[in-house]
């Protein structure tokens, strides 16, 4: 597919990398020559230097032939203008990054309609949603929901005292009687699709699928926290923090937000009347302790600096805060932070590229079985996809045990008329089902890709 990306900043580059990896023909436009040089040295893409709102530049980037046009520059207005121009020149689908709350709250649908933008992405809002999901179930390090919200996949880290360590997967299922499936395990940075006799160990990160109610049931049985985090302390008054605080406030969480800049604090106090806004330097331990780090249920570090987020989070973990979430944008730091014991990391640009890749894959096969949802699991080493089964699905009504799957692939769930089914060998896939598939170390575009 021909893709044009405007803006080669942090987000643009991540998106570029993902799309090149997916095998698309990518052209990237930026006004900084050096950034483009660096990017095209590493990724197999073409670059055009210039302003994305300049028609000649767009023409040079062959926008008229592009099936997907993504504008992710720093400026919302520029993104909107680029998308508008690209659409007028004949681009297929346009996606704009629009971040300012003003646009997102009130005028978004009007803007989308008037400018003919296919999708709006707001990295900060997406990140805030992801954090919000985790705070609803603080024992998990990641929660993703599938369409209609009747199915969830969560990531858990097995701590030393967990009841699951040392158990075989088939025994777990018999013992707890809950309808769930451990579908992927990460151990020592290796990802496994486990079979029934796989034995769990301390430190494993496991992904399990189940209906939301079953997850709560299972957590209770395991003695894990199932209540949502009541008190949340947020460090840094970024846009993500704003979105997160307003999401949490609407849901009755008590939010405390610490921000260094007095002016930002003023603005936040205007827009977030429910939250407690503290003007102070979150890097100072006195400030954190005074504001009750010891008693808070969750600590979310959202400053602009990855290093500070990591360090303050480590400090919070020494004070036994039950849930700690830190925003880390640079991938090399993600790994380091993981080694330092921080399980729950949020990478906004990865979330964005996931959303975009999902959109592109759905575009690619607009016929037959469709990718409805796509998430990355286990730090990007595995993917979980939701497919809609077409009417012409060839393997329909064949028991799963008789299907021949490719390696490292697992059917993690079936949704039939909104009823979640944890598949066993006897279950079948029927047309109009939604199938959730976990794949480690490989990518899929179509449901037929999973069979040999």
């Amino acid at each position: 597919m021909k893709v044009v990306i405007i803006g080669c900043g942090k987000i643009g580059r991540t998106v570029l990398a993902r799309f090149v990896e997916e095998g698309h023909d990518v052209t990237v436009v930026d006004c900084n020559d050096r950034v483009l040089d660096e990017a095209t040295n590493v990724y197999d893409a073409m670059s055009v230097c210039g302003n994305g709102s300049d028609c000649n530049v767009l023409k040079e980037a062959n926008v008229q032939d592009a099936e997907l046009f993504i504008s992710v520059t720093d400026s919302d207005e520029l993104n909107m203008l680029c998308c508008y121009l690209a659409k007028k020149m004949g681009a297929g689908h346009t996606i704009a990054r629009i971040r300012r709350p003003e646009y997102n709250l009130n005028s978004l649908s009007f803007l989308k309609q008037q400018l003919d933008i296919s999708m709006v992405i707001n990295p900060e809002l997406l990140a805030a949603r992801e954090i919000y999901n985790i705070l609803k179930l603080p024992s998990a390090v990641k929660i993703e929901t599938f369409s209609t919200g009747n199915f969830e996949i969560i990531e858990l880290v097995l701590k030393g005292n967990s009841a699951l360590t040392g158990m075989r997967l088939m025994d777990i299922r018999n013992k707890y009687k809950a309808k769930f499936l451990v579908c992927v395990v990460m151990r020592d940075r290796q990802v496994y699709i486990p079979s029934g006799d796989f034995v769990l160990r301390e430190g494993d990160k496991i992904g399990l699928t189940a209906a939301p109610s079953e997850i709560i049931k299972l957590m209770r049985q395991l003695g894990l926290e199932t209540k949502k985090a009541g008190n949340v302390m947020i460090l840094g008054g970024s846009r993500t923090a704003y979105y997160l605080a307003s999401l949490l406030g609407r849901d009755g969480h008590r939010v405390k937000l610490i921000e260094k800049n007095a002016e930002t604090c003023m603005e936040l106090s205007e827009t977030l009347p429910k939250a407690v806004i503290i003007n102070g330097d979150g890097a100072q331990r006195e400030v954190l302790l005074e504001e009750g780090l010891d008693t808070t249920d969750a600590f979310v570090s959202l400053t602009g600096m990855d290093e500070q987020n990591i360090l303050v989070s480590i400090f919070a973990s020494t004070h036994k805060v039950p849930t700690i979430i830190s925003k880390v944008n640079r991938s090399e730091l993600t790994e380091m932070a993981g080694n330092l014991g921080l399980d729950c990391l949020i990478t906004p640009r990865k979330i964005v590229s996931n959303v975009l890749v999902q959109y592109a894959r759905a575009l690619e096969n607009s016929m037959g079985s469709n990718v409805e949802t796509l998430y990355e699991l286990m730090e990007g080493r595995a993917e979980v996809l939701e497919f809609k089964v077409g009417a012409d699905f060839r393997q329909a009504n064949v028991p799963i045990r008789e299907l021949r799957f490719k390696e490292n692939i697992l059917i993690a769930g079936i949704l039939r008329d909104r009823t979640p089914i944890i598949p066993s060998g006897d279950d079948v896939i029927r047309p109009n089902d939604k199938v959730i598939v976990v794949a480690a170390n490989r990518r899929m575009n179509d449901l037929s890709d999973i069979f040999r």
Partner: protein
Amino acid sequence: MNRRMVLYRVAQMLFLEAAMLVLPLGVAFLYGEMKQALAFGITIVVSLVAGLPAMTVLKPTSKLIFAKDGFALVTLAWLVMSAFGAAPFVISGEIPNVVDAFFETVSGFTTTGSTILTDVTAMSHSMLFWRSFTHWIGGMGVLVLVMALVPPESGRSIHILRAEMAGPVVGKLVPKIKDTAKILYIIYFVITITEVGFLIAGGMPVFDAFIHSLGTAGTGGFGIKGDSLSSYSPYCQWVIIAFMFIFSINFNLFYLMILRRFKPVLKNLELWVFVGIVFVAAGIISVNIYPLYGDAGEAIRHAFFQTVSICSTTGYSSADFNLWPSMAKSVIFVLLFLGGCAGSTAGGLKISRVILLFKLVRRDIRKMSHPRSVATVKLDGKTVEPAVVSGVSTYFAVYMIVIAITFLLISFEPFGFESNLTAAITCCNNVGPGFGEVGPMNGFAAYSYFSKIVLTFAMLLGRLEFYPVLLAFNPRMWLKK
């Protein structure tokens, strides 16, 4: 330095060369040349065996390629390719001496067209075909062809493209490197076949038509007659002139024309400067040599043929310009340096560099009179990056130094100043003929082995635009760090 990946790529290239050798093998069978067929067969088998370990046992663990790996890879690939390419000549005994055979093959792959043969007509058909086919392979670059056929393992393959393709800036036509390489080779192939058609239509024998088309396409210049193209009809000579010109135009322009985007083509400064140089030079030479031929049509034809041949760095000739008056010879001497457009198969300094050098001179002279002036160098309406601009002047310095050193190294040869100097220049620019002893009707046979080796390296340096070879011969490159 990712040595395994470099070896892997070189092995891939060797496999491809083995596949290429099947063509002359076919020609050998066609003309019943069994001894030559055996030589090609042996070479094919040996290159497959030699490439096998790197493709299997030593498979690279990491596929990352950085800029310096690209340089090292290209140099190594060209050396290996030339060594294996020379083997059939040695095995068949047609060029028994190893140094001679290596010189001839490098001259072929680098599209120079300088020869050590004293009697070309004594060669067998299949060897002549292979000799000219090396021009075609080397013209666009063999690693580019590898990339067109094999999916690149990492996006960083752009470094290979950059190291092998000539010109100050190497860009892609389409986002994917594989598709870019494919498009370039398709354009290359189609134009070559078109030329074959035109030549056959003009009554040239089929074999000759193929040989000369391959030679023109790579802007190489190996012929099959002692007097190059003098004995062919004026029509054939005009066809060759036209195609030598076409192959020295930037291939990106052809792609733009296919896309029906004519405006950037018409506004391409390099193209028009090139056209201007050709017409002015040919005009001066025509007037200068008119008394020699006494016929305007013939004088113009010879003038254009020699001008385009030298400018495109092909090196075919329709007349012996050694016998021309000194004015015409001087013009040709200057043309030896210039070369064709960037992004074509032509060698030399490249017109775009010449343009940039002139713009640079103008800017710096202005700066002397207005010390505070700020000026950017522009080409085709776009600002040329400062790094590229300074790169061009450095390139020019390296280019001159290499020519000077080559000239000094071969200066002990007893052929006089003119011959030695033009031999050095013609090899560094991949043109082919020079003046005097190395004129269009003679060759490098009389030079000593030492000089032949020096000139062989000069050709390689010139084709790969100096830096890759210079860097690859820096031992520090190959150390682990």
